[in-house]
C-alpha cells in the first residue's frame, strides 16, 4: 500500500512511502493534486520499497498529465528498487530526464 506525506511549502513535496502497484493510482493522484502549487510539486521516492510495471505506468501517466497541464513536476531520491524498475522501463526517456533532480 502507498502512503503519502504532503509538505505544503513554497516548494511543495509529496513524500511517497510503501509500495506502488495497481492499487496506488488514487492515492498518488490525490496527493499530487492536493500538494501542487504555482511552483509545481516534488515527488520524493525515498520511502518506496516496491514498484512494479503497473505502479510505474500510473506514475508515467500522472507525469504526462501534469506536463500537459503545465504543472512543474520534480522527482528525487529514488531507492534502488525503484531505480532498477524505472531503468528497465525507460521511465526517464518517457517522462523527460529533466524531471529527475
Amino acid at each position: 500500500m502507498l502512503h503519502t506525506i504532503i509538505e505544503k511549502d513554497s516548494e511543495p513535496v509529496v513524500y511517497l512511502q510503501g509500495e506502488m502497484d495497481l492499487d496506488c493510482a488514487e492515492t498518488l493522484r490525490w496527493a499530487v493534486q492536493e500538494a501542487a502549487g504555482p511552483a509545481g510539486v516534488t515527488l520524493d521516492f525515498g520511502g518506496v520499497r516496491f514498484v512494479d510495471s503497473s505502479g510505474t505506468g500510473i506514475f508515467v501517466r500522472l507525469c504526462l498529465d501534469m506536463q500537459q497541464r503545465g504543472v512543474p513536476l520534480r522527482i528525487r531520491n529514488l531507492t534502488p528498487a525503484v531505480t532498477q524498475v524505472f531503468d528497465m522501463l525507460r521511465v526517464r526517456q518517457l517522462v523527460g530526464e529533466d524531471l529527475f533532480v
Partner: protein
Amino acid sequence: MKAHPSALPHKIPLGPVAGHDGRPATLRVLRYDARTTTLRTVLGNDPSPGLRAEIATRAHDAMTHRAFIVRTTPGSDIDELCLIPSGEYCEVLCIHSNGWRRTHGDHRRSLSEILSDLAAAVACGKLRFLDASQLAAELTSGEQMLYREITGPGTLAAARKHLSTGLEALGIAAISREHVVLGACEAATNTLIHGGGVGSLSLIKLPNTARVVVADTGPGLTFLNWYDKPAAGMQPSMGYGYRIILEHIDRISLHTCPSGTTLLLDQTT
C-alpha cells in the same frame, strides 16, 4: 520547464487504426518435430493447411541452419513469426495482430517487441510453453505452501507479503526473494487486468526449487490491452509485465487458452 519530446500529449487517440477486424490480437505457439517432420499446435488455434505446410518448411530450414529467425509477414494469417530451433524441436511463435496497431504517441511496447522478448527467452531455455497435458502433469508436483486468491488491486499487497514470508521459509535469499515477489506481482496483476479480474497465487515447494503458480480463468493471452484505451488517468499496462517476469525469474512456463492462463515461475533455492 520544457517537456521532453517523448512526453508530449497524445495527438492521436490510442487504439486501433482503420482496417482491424474487431477481433483481438492472438498468440499462437507451434512445435515442429524434426524426427517426425510434424507440426503440433501447443497454444492457440490450428493454422490453415496451407499455412501449416509453409510454417513446417520454414521450421525445417531454421533447424537446418540452426538459425533463430524472425519474420514479418503482412497480409497473411501471421504478422510476426519467430522460429526458434531447440534440440530436435523448433518452437514457432506467431502473433496475428488482426489489424491492431500501436498508434503514434503511444508509449506502450509494440507487439513485435513483446514477441521478440518471448522468443529470445524460449531460445535461451528460460521460457517454455506448455500444452494442457504438460500443464496438468506439472501441477501434480510438489507441496503447496501458500494459496491466495487475487480478487482486486487491494489484495496484491497481502499476497506479496505472504509470498515473501513463504519464500524465506524455503531458504530463498533476500535479493532473489525480491525478484520472485516482483515477477509474481506482475503475473498476479495481469490476472486482474487481462485475466478476467480474478486469479490465484500459490507457492509450491519442489526439490531445489520454489515455484509460484499464478492462474486465472480469463480469456487467455490475447493482447486485449492493445485495443482497450486505458481508463481516464490510468496507464496500467505498458507491455512490460512479461519482460520484468523474464528478467527476474530463473525459469518460466506458460500455458494460455480461451479458458485461462497459468504461469509457473520457478526459482532455484
